[in-house]
């Protein structure tokens, strides 16, 4: 399975980012929040390899500490999407009828909002903060997981062996857990990796707009916001966080595509 080039590159990128996040204190000696008014918007130098921002904070330190927040929020949001979406999708697919209609109609309501737009509206009301970002991402992301799970479970539940297990007295819970969900794991995993990159991109968008991770805590999106209107004086502001977001999304997307190809599933 690891022979896939996409999987290999994706894994390397993901590992590098998690290392950057874990070793944030080693990567840069500076505190990501401490401001140095003598070095405001300083260009790249040996002391500050990525320069400093408009408040004189070290960009490398903020980039590495921002990796912690961005990755943690994306992973936790995706996990929450699965925790909510998987059981609901499985129940809708297995029981059909009224439970199916109710669950999927509710899912449709959340899917009626373009993902980023729904998250923006919710964050506008509840205010910034990593916990709120997590909830916003999960709230508008779970229907996708539910849909994928539902389709897989429905497909599998229509097969003869499932009817045989039912006749033999297997409970709904047993059939779903033992026979139906294992078949959904592949597609859901593929979709979750894409979901991870969407979550990261959307968190970056929210933080860029100032309604994501609460300032002054570092986040890649808010670091990019610092560059708006300062491109003529400090063009280096966009390269670090820009490259970080692109790399992270690229890594997760490649992992998803690689997994898709090697599992050969319809995700």
């Amino acid at each position: 399975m690891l022979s896939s080039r996409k999987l290999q590159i994706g894994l390397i990128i993901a590992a590098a980012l998690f290392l950057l996040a874990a070793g944030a204190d080693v990567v840069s000696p500076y505190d990501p929040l401490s401001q140095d008014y003598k070095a405001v918007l300083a260009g790249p130098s040996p002391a500050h390899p990525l320069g400093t921002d408009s408040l004189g904070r070290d960009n490398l330190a903020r980039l590495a500490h921002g990796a912690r927040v961005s990755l943690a929020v994306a992973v936790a949001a995706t996990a929450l999407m699965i925790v909510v979406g998987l059981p609901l999708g499985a129940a809708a697919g297995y029981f059909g009828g009224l439970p199916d209609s109710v669950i999927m109609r509710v899912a449709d309501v959340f899917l009626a909002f373009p993902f980023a737009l729904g998250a923006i509206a919710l964050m506008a009301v509840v205010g910034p903060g990593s916990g709120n970002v997590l909830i916003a991402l999960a709230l508008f992301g779970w229907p996708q997981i539910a849909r994928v799970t539902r389709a897989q479970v429905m497909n599998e539940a229509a097969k003869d062996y499932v009817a045989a297990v039912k006749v033999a007295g297997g409970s709904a819970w047993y059939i779903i857990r033992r026979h139906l969900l294992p078949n959904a794991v592949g597609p859901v995993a593929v979709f979750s990796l894409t979901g991870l990159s969407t979550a990261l991109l959307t968190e970056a968008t929210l933080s860029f707009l100032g309604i994501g991770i609460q300032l002054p805590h570092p986040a890649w999106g808010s670091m990019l916001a610092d560059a708006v209107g300062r491109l003529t004086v400090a063009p280096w502001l966009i390269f670090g966080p820009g490259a970080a977001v692109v790399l992270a999304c690229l890594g997760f997307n490649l992992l998803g595509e690689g997994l898709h190809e090697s599992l050969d599933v319809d995700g």
Partner: protein
Amino acid sequence: MFAYCFRRLLAVAPILIGVTLLLFILLQVLPGDPARMLTGYRTPSPQALSNLQGRMGTKASLVGQYANYLLALSRGDLGRSYRTQRPVVAIIGETLPNSLALAALALSIEMLIGVPAGALAAIKRGSLFDRGSMVASTLLAATPVFALGLLFQLVLGVRLKWLPVTGAGSFSSYLMPALVMALIAAAYLVRVVRSSLLDVLAKDYITAARANGLSERRVLLVHGLKNALAPIIAVAGVHFGFLIGSAVATEVVFNWPGIGRQLFAAVMERDRPVVIGVTLVMATIFLLVNLIVDISQAWVNPRVREEG
């Protein structure tokens, strides 16, 4: 066909009601009393607060408030801005055309790039062009629209001085934001066109057309691209949702006077009626576009109608 349209319309109605309910919760219920929020840090006299609650209609029960909200919506009333007291509908009416103009240009550029590039990649499968366009599309799909916007401003605006960096003065000011949105959207379109055309080109009727001696151009344009169209239409809805979502950050980066920047400004000013009104309008447009996509799919492909 008529029955299908009717069924789709019927299916959209409960979703739209759910959308209004969710937005009503965000507008009136979640933050607590909107009248208290509006008065901010000052503590109003009980009489003033009661008057304000009466005027804002928040004295009624929640069910009553929701009914009033729906009633107002049916009259085309989205409420008034906390900030300026102007009707939200008027604010949207001023900014939406600018966004639609930008989106239309972005969509055109995207088609001009995405369809030929995807088709060429499929025809010359495995070639340098195919690999190159796939790498480019993988990279662009991972790029946030505002990061690409900043990069373009730096390179095309600040350094090369080819295009204005921000604003909406002349036609040239349309180009950069439209190009940024178009490029990222095209990253998805290229892939869909490529894989869809590859599927079609492997079909027997293409081999038959070639065996009948049709020119390669005719085979590709008449039989290939035409039949590859259905999956491309199918993803158009999702695609449009992506454009709406990315419009907000794009308009903020380029200071574009559209509905996205308006939404951002309202978020910053905690002007909740404007936030919720704009969101409702954008979600409704998204639902309608998806409805049109579904119906045109059914029109192109009768099998869809049967499945309902």
